[in-house]
């Protein structure tokens, strides 16, 4: 188990400071590890940033890297989880020629069935937004690519964990 390469979701709570992206990504780069996706955003705590990083490696290596991340002065806490320990979403946008919407009736069915949302339509193109799990987005991509996609973009994964993360308590402990 420890030696098998699997996908991990790394969640990191940090201060919101310039240069932390560099510091965190350097930990992976130094060990010749590719980051599959990375997302940085606000968290449930004001002034605290939450990172969601997707990487493939062994659990043994993952533990060591979590240690290295937590060692950074401005990192409050880091966790790693397997996919089934998280609830996650990815988001994507498709830009497609508007003509197709009327010429290819099937597209309308695809949109309906996939629970995708039309963000905007104009004479030239329409934009479709879809949030969901990785395979749902991949399926939609395959279905639409038959008709031609003008532009496609996909976000990094964002994930919440099933177990608790006691960051607020940790920060409160420091203030007391």
């Amino acid at each position, binding site marked *: 188990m420890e030696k098998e390469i699997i996908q991990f979701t790394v969640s990191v709570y*940090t*201060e919101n*400071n*310039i*240069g932390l992206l*560099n*510091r965190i990504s*350097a930990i992976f780069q*130094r060990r010749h590890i590719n980051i599959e996706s990375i997302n940085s955003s606000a968290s449930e705590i004001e002034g605290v940033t939450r990172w969601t990083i997707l990487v493939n490696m062994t659990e043994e290596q993952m*533990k*060591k890297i979590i*240690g*290295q991340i*937590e*060692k950074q*002065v*401005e*990192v*409050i806490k880091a966790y790693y989880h397997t996919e089934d320990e998280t609830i996650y979403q990815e988001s994507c946008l498709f830009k497609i020629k508007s003509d197709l919407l009327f010429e290819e009736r099937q597209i309308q069915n695809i949109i309906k069935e996939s629970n995708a949302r039309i963000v905007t339509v104009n004479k030239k193109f329409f934009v479709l937004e879809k949030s969901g799990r990785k395979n749902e987005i991949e399926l939609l991509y395959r279905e639409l690519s038959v008709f031609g996609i003008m532009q496609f973009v996909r976000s990094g994964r964002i994930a919440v964990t099933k177990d608790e993360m006691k960051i607020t308590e940790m*920060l409160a402990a*420091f*203030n007391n």
Partner: protein
Amino acid sequence: MKETLTVKQKQYLEQPKERISGSEAIVRCLLAEGVDVLYGYPGGAIMPVYDELYKYQDKIHHVLTRHEQGATHAAQGYARISGKVGVAMATSGPGATNLITGIADAQIDSTPIVCITGQVASHLLGSDAFQETDIVGISTPITKWNHQITKASEIPEVLAKAFYIAKSGRPGPVLIDITKDAQFEEFDFQYKKCTGVRSYNPVPKVDDSKLKAAAELINNAKKPMIVWGQGVILGKAEEELKAVIEKAGIPSAWTIMGASAIPTSHPLNIGMVGMHGNYAPNVLTNDCDVLIAIGMRFDDRVTGKLDDYATQAKVIHFEIDPAEVDKNVKTDVAVLGDSKESLSKLLPLLNANSHTEWLQKFKDLYAIEFEKVIKNDLHPTKEGLTMGEVLNEINKQSKGQAAIVSDVGQHQMIACRYAEFNVSKSNITSGGLGTMGFALPAAIGAKMAAPEREVVAIIGDGGYQMTIQELGTIFQTKVPVKIVVLNNDFLGMVRQWQQLFFDKRYASTEMTNPDFVAIAKGYYVDAKRVTKRDELASAIEEMMQSENAYFLEVCVEKEDNVFPMVPSGASVSDIRLE
């Protein structure tokens, strides 16, 4: 609004403020942190700070090194011998990039230093301005923390944090980059020392259950062995370690960074582990039943082949940095925390013991090492001088009281193997990074931090020429360091590897050297060269007696090798004696 503030915050706000420039604030912060000496080199982007240093020169001594690398190593030497934070200063661009080697060295050897760099004015950031370099970006992976200041008002808080972070927990280098406009800007100054950072837990709490588990393993051990590292020195836990060793009667070895924490002559001090360490502790690492690692990080130069390292033993790891636990060697019990606290809490849990038979094994192997290696190193019968006999003579004449600052290579291994240590913080060397050029500037810093101590730099002819210009700093400051260059006209350690592992193809390791004595004299440093055994003792005596800086070149045997040796990739118990 004010009612919601804590008493502490109110007191802080009510402190008197003064309107001063950012650059004066920098100097005032340094003074508030107890900095009495700093090392650096001026230049465009740091000039406002130098202008203030000029005004404050009666309170703070700025030492002009001859290269910024020298400033960082001097700050390291200062920190290593005193336990205080060393400070280095440089301008932007090349000044800042020249600090990098010293910062990397301080990072891997956990040395508390604060580096302050000037930066181009904030409106020029990112414009490829003259002498602009992204030093925060460059230094990120090799600093414990770094930060760029663009507003004067940030200076007090950030510098307070810099000193706190550099010094606390597992120490390390911090770099603060300050734009030139922030140095000029005036603001209301007040200083408050930093006592904590919410995202940073420098010293983990000692877990009593882990301590108990560790004590139980130790009490039941038949063949326990301790390997201690610099964590003992950084934690000021020398006395606690000694008490533990003596009570439990455990043979104890040290890593290169841990040297001098326990006197060399202590009966339970069984010598150095690692690639060129002593025979007994290396061999018996693979024989002990409990291995107790204290404030060390299982570096590859210590462990040799990991798969064959102490696999028979239960491993206990006393460590302040959670990231070190299970990093290289899987532990059975990890006791996180400060070494002083952990060891003092461990002591009452230990049973008094004396592992006489087990200790005898170390003595027996030492006898073999003495016969095969040490005797010939210290009391050679061949014509050429050995590095070992030079160290032996220094031991005799300093009565084992000198602080030894070594560079990197064969002479370093010899110095660490044979120097006699009776005082902690006496072995100042570049352990993790292996930085040639470290010793000369580090010796300057060490002597300035501890003027009462005899500081002897032991340097090879290769490393010496990497920072030889610091002779200028020695001349200008009159700092009375003793410099011994062990000259074999080779990059000796690389040559040794070429001989052993590259079929004697001596690619670029032979050095055509200048007249080192003439160079030293050119800097008005007293100097002498020794080529024969019968001149050695009197030359070292002259050096030790001198009240000034002194340079001694000892021409040693050209093609001597350092043994014992664990060849890279081999197990520690496959250590070679010849």
